[in-house]
Structures are given as C-alpha cells and as structure tokens.
C-alpha cells in the first residue's frame, strides 16, 4: 500500500484511540480531506520544484511506533546543551519520555501537547491558538494536523523572562525499520515575555526516518522569542519542518536554522505580521556534503506599517550536495515604511554541488525599503593565498575562511554554550582542528 493510502486508512483508527472534543475532530477531518485531495507534494508544484520526496516515500514507514522505548541520558547527553540547566521536552520515536524530560508548570507551562489537547483546563488556549496560524491549505501541514497529538506545548504568561532555555528534542531509535513521526508544537509567548528555545530532531542510527513537523509560534506584544533549530542528523533522516510564526506589535522573533545533516531537509518557515514596529529575523547556516539536500523555503508576510525583516542565509555545499533557497517577501499595501532585507550567500566546493537560489519579492506598498541579494561563488583565492603565506595549511585556511563566511550568522547566537556547540559542529564538518576555539 502506498504511504498516502496507508495514512488515510489509519486516520479513523487514530481518532478512535484518542479522546478528542468535537472542534478538534472537525479540524482533523478537514485536514485529512485536504491531504487526501492534494497528496504529497511533487516537483510539478512550483514550491517543490527542486525537492523531490519520491525516493523517501517508497519506504514502508511505520505510522505509529509500537511501544515506548527508553534511552539512558548518558547515551544521548551529547545532543543536549548539557553545560547549562535547561527545560527539556524529550520524545523517543514520537512518544514522550518522562525520564529524559524536565518540564514545568510553575509560572509557565513547558509540557506536552497531548495533555494540552486533552485536558479541559487548556481548552480555551487550544481553541484560541491551535492550528490558527498553520496553513490549512498546504498538504503536509494538513497531514500533520490530522494526526497532531504529541509534541511540545509551551505557554509563557505575560511579563515573564524565562530563565533557562527550553530544549525540544525528538529522538528516533531506529527500532522500526522505517518510521514516520509527526510532532506538533505550540509556543505562545505573552506580552513583554522572553524565551529561548532550541529544537532538534535526532536519529540514533541510519534507519530511515521521515519527520513531518509543525510548529506554531505566537509572539504577543513586545515579546522576544529566539528559536534555534539544530539539524545535524544521520543520512537516513529526512525532515520536513513547517514553522509558522504569528507576531504582534513590537515583538522580536528570530528563527535560526543550522542545517548540517540528514538526507533531505526542507524548512518551510513562515512569518505573519499582525502589528506595527515588529522585527522578524530569519538566519541560516547550511554546510552539507555527500548527496545531502537542504531546502529553505521562507515567507515573510508584511501586513502592517513600520516593520522590519532580516534574512541572512549562508550555504556551503561540497560533493554532490544540493541546496535550495527560496525566499518570499510579501509586502501588503498597508505595510508602508517596511524594511525587508534578504541575503543568500553560497559557496560551492564540489564540482557537482548545486544551489538553486530564488528571491521572490511581491511589494504592493510604495514607501518601503526592500533588498535581496543572492551570491554563489567559490572560496576567495586571494584570501587563501594570504593565509597560506602566513603558514596556515590549505585545509585549515579553507576552514578558517568558511568559518569567517558563516560568522555573521554565528555571531547572532545569544546562548554562548550553543554558539560554542555550533562552531564545534562546523569545525568537525570541515574536518579541522584549528589552534583556537573557533
């Protein structure tokens, strides 16, 4: 049976086993219908022109993992920012792991989507936010909505500065020959509140995994949200990350995506503006090789005056790897005095590596500052010669240059331990040990 049919036929069985109130049931039913109509996206669609799911969908994915697996913390410690104290919401093969997690209800909710969806005390919040900003049209988001049951639920009341970063971690054990997981996260950040969140999807062996994740982020007035995505996975791992951000006035939301691995990664990152004088930041570093594929598909929808958005994506592609950057900026007529900047800089190191970069600007306001710039190049030979002349061997010189290239994005990481971790991953990726901590 093809995966699509398998999913549709599992839907009824899925709904029977969970306790859902009727509004949710309606949402899910509409969602599965949309997925049934549209199916998995193909390269025929403009937005999927450079990314094909065909090969991946041939796997016989288990849709619901059979049983709960436990992992020892010491075996997976390295994937956490363990140098500092953090809240942790950890899932193993899609199932919540209470012994690896560190959740809270004191002053803020850092807990489980399943309880938020099922417990009456959360009903008002769920009704107000769940599936409100996520697309009802996009088929993979609909597929996730239909099966949405587990993930991270984070609700920060107003005037709260969350003292510790929150880590959301999805492990796949590879106990199933092939596994499909569909995490669903909801993040609500109240007025004047501040939170830092780190999200990671990590498989523990090479068995194929397809993660179709949806995250909704709501930033209220003057909220500050720093969201970091670490993608450094095995070659069996495939990730489709659908993130939807809703921003109210004077809020600052940044989503920084560090893509180093996996077989195929697609980041659909969408920002919607519902207020003036707010700032959206979308940054990314992609360093891949082999036959890896990373596709960044971004949208910033400017709908109110005096807002700013900044996009800065750096990519380094070796071997046969391919990258896609499609950045859409939409400026509505009302959104006067918009500042929207977009940059995509890429270095191709392999003879067979490719980048498809496509900026899309649709501007209907007349008093705006919008810019975009895509560059594709090789490493600067003069800079290489300069460093070699000072005694730095070619390989190290190359690494230093690539580090320098990604530095503008790295500098934006506000958690020092995370910054250190990212630079370490980069050094490892580039295969060098440089005489100082990058």
């Amino acid at each position, binding site marked *: 049976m093809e995966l699509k049919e398998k999913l549709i036929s599992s839907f009824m069985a899925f709904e029977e086993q969970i306790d859902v109130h009727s509004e949710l049931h309606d949402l899910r039913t509409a969602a599965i219908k949309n997925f049934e109509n549209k199916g998995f996206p193909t390269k025929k669609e403009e937005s999927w022109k450079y990314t094909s799911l065909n090969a991946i969908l041939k796997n016989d994915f288990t849709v619901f993992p059979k049983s709960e697996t436990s992992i020892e913390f010491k075996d997976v410690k390295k994937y956490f920012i363990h140098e500092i104290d953090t809240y942790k919401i950890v899932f193993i093969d899609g199932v919540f792991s209470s012994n690896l997690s560190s959740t809270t209800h004191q002053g803020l909710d850092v807990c489980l989507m399943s309880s938020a969806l099922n417990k009456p005390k959360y009903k008002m919040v769920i009704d107000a936010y769940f599936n409100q900003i996520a697309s009802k049209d996009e088929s993979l988001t609909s597929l996730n909505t239909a099966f949405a049951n587990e993930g991270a639920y984070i609700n920060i009341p107003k005037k709260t500065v969350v003292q510790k970063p929150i880590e959301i971690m999805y492990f796949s054990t590879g106990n199933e020959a092939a596994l499909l997981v569909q995490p669903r996260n909801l993040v609500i950040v109240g007025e004047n509140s501040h939170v830092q969140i780190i999200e990671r999807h990590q498989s523990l062996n090479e068995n194929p995994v397809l993660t179709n994740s949806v995250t909704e982020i709501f930033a209220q007035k003057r909220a500050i949200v720093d969201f970091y995505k670490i993608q450094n996975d095995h070659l069996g791992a495939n990730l489709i990350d659908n993130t939807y951000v809703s921003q109210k006035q004077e809020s600052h939301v940044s989503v920084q995506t560090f893509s180093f691995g996996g077989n195929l990664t697609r980041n659909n990152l969408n920002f919607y503006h519902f207020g003036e004088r707010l700032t959206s930041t979308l940054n990314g570093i992609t360093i891949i090789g082999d036959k890896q594929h990373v596709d960044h598909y971004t949208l910033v929808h400017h709908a109110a005056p005096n807002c700013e958005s900044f996009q800065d994506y750096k990519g380094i592609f070796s071997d046969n790897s391919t990258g896609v950057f499609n950045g859409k900026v939409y400026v509505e007529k009302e959104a006067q005095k918009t500042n929207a900047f977009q940059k995509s800089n890429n270095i191709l190191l392999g003879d067979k590596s490719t980048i498809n970069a496509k900026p899309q600007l649709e501007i209907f306001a007349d008093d705006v500052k919008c810019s975009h710039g895509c560059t594709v190049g090789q490493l600067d030979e003069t800079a290489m010669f300069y460093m070699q002349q000072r005694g730095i061997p070619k390989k190290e010189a190359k690494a230093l*240059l690539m580090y320098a290239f990604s530095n503008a994005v790295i500098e934006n990481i506000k958690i020092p331990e995370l910054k250190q971790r990212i630079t370490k991953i980069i050094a490892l990726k580039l295969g060098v040990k440089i005489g100082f901590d990058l």
Partner: protein
Amino acid sequence: MLSIKNLHASIGDKEILKGINLEVKAGEVHAIMGPNGAGKSTLSAIIAGNENYEVTDGEIFLDNEDISELAPEERAHKGVFLSFQYPVEIPGVSVTNFMRTAINETRKANGQEEMPANEMLKVIREKSELLEIDRKFLSRSLNEGFSGGEKKRNEIFQMAMLEPKLAILDETDSGLDIDALRIVANGVNKLKSDKNAIVVITHYQRLLDYIVPDFVHVLYNGKIVKSGTKELAYELEEKGYDWIKQEQEA
C-alpha cells in the same frame, strides 16, 4: 640566502617575468624599483608561491634549497614572508587568533611544540609595542575595517611575530601617512639582523629614506635592467622612470 636564476613566469598567455636573476645575502636589504606594470608584484607573489602564476623557466633557491615547487605554506614554514600590498580582510578571525594559528602551524611544520599561551601573550605584547599597536586592535577581526595604515602596520606586526628569514615588503609605503611610515620603517629596522634579509618593493624612493637599502635594482618589462647602490634610487627619483624606458628602447 635568496638566489633567483633566470626566472620566467606568465599568467595565462602573458609572459610577465622574462629572465630575472637576483642574489640576496643574509644581512642585506635590497630594493626593487620600477614603473607600474614592470612585474614587481608578480615577482614577490612568485617568490611566495602564488599558484596563479606559472613559472615557465628558472629556479628560486632559499638557502641552497630549490623552493620553486613548494606550496605557499611550505615556503612560509621555511621563513619566507610577504607583506601584502593589499592585505585581505578576514571577518570573524581576530588578529590574535590568526597569529596564534600561523605561529603554531609553522612550529608544527618545523617539528616544534606549540607555543605556550603565556609565552604567546608575552611575544604579542612585545611586538605590538614595537609597532605601536593598541592592544584592543588585536582582538578585532583581521584587517576588517582597518585603515590603510593600520593594515600595513598589522602586516609588519605579523612579520615581527613570525620572524622570517626573508621578508618581502610589497609596496608597504602605499597608503601610509608620514607617521605610519615612520612607525612601520622603524619596526622593520629593528627586526633587521645579520641572519635575515629584506627585499623592499616600491615605486617611490620615499620609503628608502627610512629603510636604507644596500642594493637597488630597477625592474622594467620583466627584467632587471639596472642594479646599483642606494644612489640609484635618488637618480630614479630625480630623472623619473622615463629615463629607464628611453634607455631601454634606444
């Protein structure tokens, strides 16, 4: 120390050096002068191993070892230093970290231990004082946003840190005001010893008032057409390069 024999080099189809011969002994300062396009910068780039140029004939010896086939970093490890006319900006890598990497890679290549951190700091302090460099400057990204003078001073600071056998200063005076020129020249003079040698490449005589050469060579159209002592530089300053051109074409 440096011995260049019948060096021919080209970039693409264009021959730029057409048979250069040059002998530089330890303890000497040589100046290479010449009009724009004579091949001065090409010569310095080739000695340092820039792979954009193709050496079509001839050899380059450093202490009797042919270095013509070595990679730039291998030449650097043997003590060749080139002060760039246009130093490259490297954002995100501080001057200190760059130097630490350069020094330790050189030491590693020469079978030495890494320089201990406290010693490194001490040397950095000494050498930065020599070039009158503010300590804050050292934590800035290499050459990024540096003024022309700061870039050149930073080049000589790196030379002081690496203590090369052979230093080639390519148009080090360009973009320098008189104070910076004095500081740079003073630094170079303090680094001069009977164990190393300096080749100064310059268009103007001005720098040679500060770094006094033992020999002056005139490069024109890919060849050394005249050699002499420092008086030759004054003669050039007075008569201009047209004098050389006319002599050559006559």
